[in-house]
């Protein structure tokens, strides 16, 4: 047995489920994600007591209550900021942020930006149901144009933000996308996110059965899945529809286009390079309909994570110096007053 790496007792998915009654609506996509996360945790080699789930406010943000780990259900939009304090205070902790499209991209957009550019080593799961669930169904910054909701009775008119595009623009070094129901692949994806040092941005399309049911059906529903989902894999050609179609870069127009793959020859099909920001951008920008939805690890290009940079600098700077409080207080030119009144320099 190896003395350096601590021994983590093996766990089962149930060990990661808290005793709290899950209170999402029956049929909510959040249940599937919770299940997938609980199935993934035992495979990460981390102990529940070294794991912290941090969330903001929203249906999705209730997530931490259901995990048998440390959990902090903070305030609306601020989970990334709280998580930053936690991770800087104790880099040993395995920190997960759970947020929603409203929590993370409406009120919390600024913290999201700075979390990503600083590249703090956390896993961020954005439950995107394109709606405000907890407050009963108002449109969100990711709601499609024309979404009817209590605040947009005649259809929403503000152009939605594309979470993954925003993440890349903010400087994210790991960007992935999946679907609540993708139970088979999610553990693998979460493992990738977990092993990535730095902020792992994972957008999960999540169905809100009450206020935005089936909004993703055009690519999640069984019949549409194959033809409208493009699962990317590093080093593999970007093919979908059971290998019958692929995407290619049109060099003259400098844009992607869909091509049919005849007898399996994928030469001019673009090969996925998850380290290439440009490729990621193209995949994210693909307009749905004309193109499928790109899923999986779209971009992964590690760089020093924030807490590492902070602690490295702290160590470098304090190298061989121990804080001497007495000396600190006496710093600068001073003078002594002797019991006998008289001043000496």
């Amino acid at each position, binding site marked *: 047995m190896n003395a350096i790496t601590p021994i983590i007792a093996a766990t089962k998915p149930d060990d990661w489920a*808290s005793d*709290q009654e899950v209170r999402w609506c029956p049929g909510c996509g959040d249940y599937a994600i919770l299940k997938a996360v609980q199935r993934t945790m035992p495979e990460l080699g981390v*102990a*529940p*007591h*070294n794991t912290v789930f*941090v969330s903001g*406010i929203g249906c999705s943000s209730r997530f*931490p*209550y259901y*995990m*048998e*780990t*440390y*959990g*902090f*259900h*903070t*305030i609306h939009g*601020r989970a*990334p*900021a*709280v998580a*930053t*304090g*936690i*991770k*800087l*205070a*104790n880099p*040993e*902790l395995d920190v997960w942020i759970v947020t929603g499209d409203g929590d993370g991209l409406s009120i919390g957009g*600024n*913290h999201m*930006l*700075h979390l990503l550019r600083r590249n703090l080593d956390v896993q961020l799961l954005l439950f995107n149901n394109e709606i405000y669930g907890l407050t009963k169904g108002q449109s969100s910054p990711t709601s499609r144009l024309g979404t009817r909701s209590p605040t947009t009775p005649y259809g929403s008119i503000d152009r939605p933000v594309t979470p993954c595009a925003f993440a890349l623009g903010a400087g994210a070094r790991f960007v992935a996308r999946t679907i609540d129901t993708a139970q088979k692949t999610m553990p693998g994806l979460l493992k990738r996110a977990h092993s990535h040092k730095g902020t792992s941005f994972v957008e999960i399309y999540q169905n809100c059965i009450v206020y935005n049911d089936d909004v993703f059906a055009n690519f999640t529903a069984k019949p549409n899945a194959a033809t409208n989902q493009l699962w990317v894999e590093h080093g593999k050609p970007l093919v979908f529809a059971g290998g019958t179609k692929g995407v290619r870069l049109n060099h003259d127009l400098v844009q992607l286009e869909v091509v049919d793959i005849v007898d399996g020859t994928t030469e001019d099909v673009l090969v996925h390079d998850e380290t290439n920001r440009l490729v990621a951008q193209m995949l994210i920008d693909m307009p749905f309909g004309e193109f499928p939805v790109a899923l999986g690890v779209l971009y992964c290009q590690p760089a020093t994570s924030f807490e590492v940079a*902070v602690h490295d*600098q*702290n160590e470098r*700077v*304090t190298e061989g*110096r*121990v*804080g001497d*409080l*007495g000396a*600190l*207080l*006496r*710093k*600068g*030119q*001073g*003078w*002594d*007053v*002797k*019991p006998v*009144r008289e*001043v000496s320099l």
Partner: protein
Amino acid sequence: MATAFRPDETLPPAANDPSHPDAVVVRFAGDSGDGMQLTGGQFTLSAALSGNDFATFPDFPAEIRAPQGTTFGVSAFQINFGAIDIETAGDEPDVLVAMNPAALKTNIGALRRGGLVIADTGEFGPRNLAKAGYTISPLDDDSLMNYTVMAFDISALTLEAVKPFGLGNKEALRCKNMWTLGLALWMFDRDRAPLVDWLKTKFAKNEVLANANIAALNAGHAYGETAEIGGPLKQYHVDAAEALPGHYRTITGGESLALGLVAGAHLAGLTMFFGSYPITPASPILHHLARLKEFGITTFQAEDEIAAICSAIGASYAGQLGVTSSSGPGIALKGEAMGLAIITELPLVIVNSQRGGPSTGLPTKTEQSDLYQAIYGRNGDAPLIVIAARSPTDSFDVAIEACRLATQFMTPVMVLTDGYIANAAEPWRVPDRADYAPFPAEFADAPEEDGKVLPYKRDAETFKRPWIRPGTPGMTHRIGGIEKAVDTGNINYEPANHQAMTDIRKAKIDGVARYIPAQEVEVGGTTGRLAVVGWGSTYGPIRKAVQRSRAAGHDVAHIHIRYLWPFPANLGELLKGFDKVLVPEMNTGQLKTVLRDQFLVDARPLNKVSGQPFKIAEIEAAIEGMLGSVK
């Protein structure tokens, strides 16, 4: 003010000898580029080294670097130093050093009638006069007839003095402030040696500049000696003030507060996380701490004030001492997050360096108008502890106390200081590690006998909940901003539970009154005709005013409150011992509200909201106003 213990109620015999004053107020004023803050700082050091007590008031322009010669570009530094107990930077300067017309224009009004003006005629050319809005030079007309004026060409004299070193004209003129300092040193019979040493180290890399500045310093000094004969320039001797034995240094409120936080974390046995976002006048605290990594301090410049406090809350949750700092507008933004720290009952120190409001207001001016916000400014019934610093040196103790209360009661504590305290300097008797009892923070690391983890099971005495660090085996639990069940901390919407938790949160903070010192009386007795009650940076002027009123025969006392929420247990009784209560504040009457609510005493407000500290005379007058003049 931390040093001298000879109050000026008992004036020393010397008092009547004009060449031997108890205290003198000097104001250096010039263009932002003239280095007045530096001159003032060094003059302060010389006063310190001569054993004077003193207080300073740097008064810089709002602009970073305003155009040369403009009135809004004037930078001033005032120092009050003496052989007696000094508590304020002084109501009126006795001496005004004006390096250009704009400086004269903007500062002459403050000068004592009959006071001395030293002006550099070299800067009183048409262009500068015009920029200051003078049509004819005030040195030439009789507009200064109420003052003694010493006007001579400091610029020329400086150039003359540094000629040997062959500096460019611009560089050479930069030595003006040292020439002026030299003159001032002569005026007050100060030793030049420490300044010469200082210049040598400052310009270690450039010997020519060092020598040029030293030459200017000496020339100014020599000028005084030669000019003395018969002229209005006299030499004054200000004796050392009596002071407690010990090691002293000068310190500003900003640095003092920062050091107090370091000491506080140290006494709690914790590393510190300081999450902040720059804002005037709070930034210096962040700047100081950013350099102290070897003391286990992590500073984090957040993207905004909300992230700053939230990151500090996260750090406290993870077991560090979370601290955040800002001024009025930034504190306003932190309100919602303070509520989170209150309901999750995590230790947190929130420092508010108050400035002129409302809104952006007067960023570089001082004010006390955030007391309402500190005590009442949050949604819901959200009590926290509020304490205030009264002076630069007091900031150190207050910061330590904030760390103690935050960790011992698992609660946010707001520390109120202000722009005046943050920038002002005074002599500080450096305390000893042994002067402070440690208050080690405790972490819960084992469940109850029955194996339950109860993050909201409270200490029977203090009602504080356990501090459980993530990473502790067997203690996993979840907390958050929704009302939580007694003991377990699980989400709970039941009416009785909410009532119970609201009551206990209130009881916990109210109960702090049992763990803080009783309120003492600063000056005067515990009963009388009038109590002048203050908080924060009004300490100096109130103390002086009350001392003088008492010397004039008034039955008045000075009570200065450090613990603003909750109040010391005896405060109500104490106040009832006085016929009248006067509350001077640099706001429109905020402490007044809290006192009237809590004790139903007829506290009368004395308000000044001009971005300037109170003058002693203003408070004296108010005391007279309430007690009538003594026959």
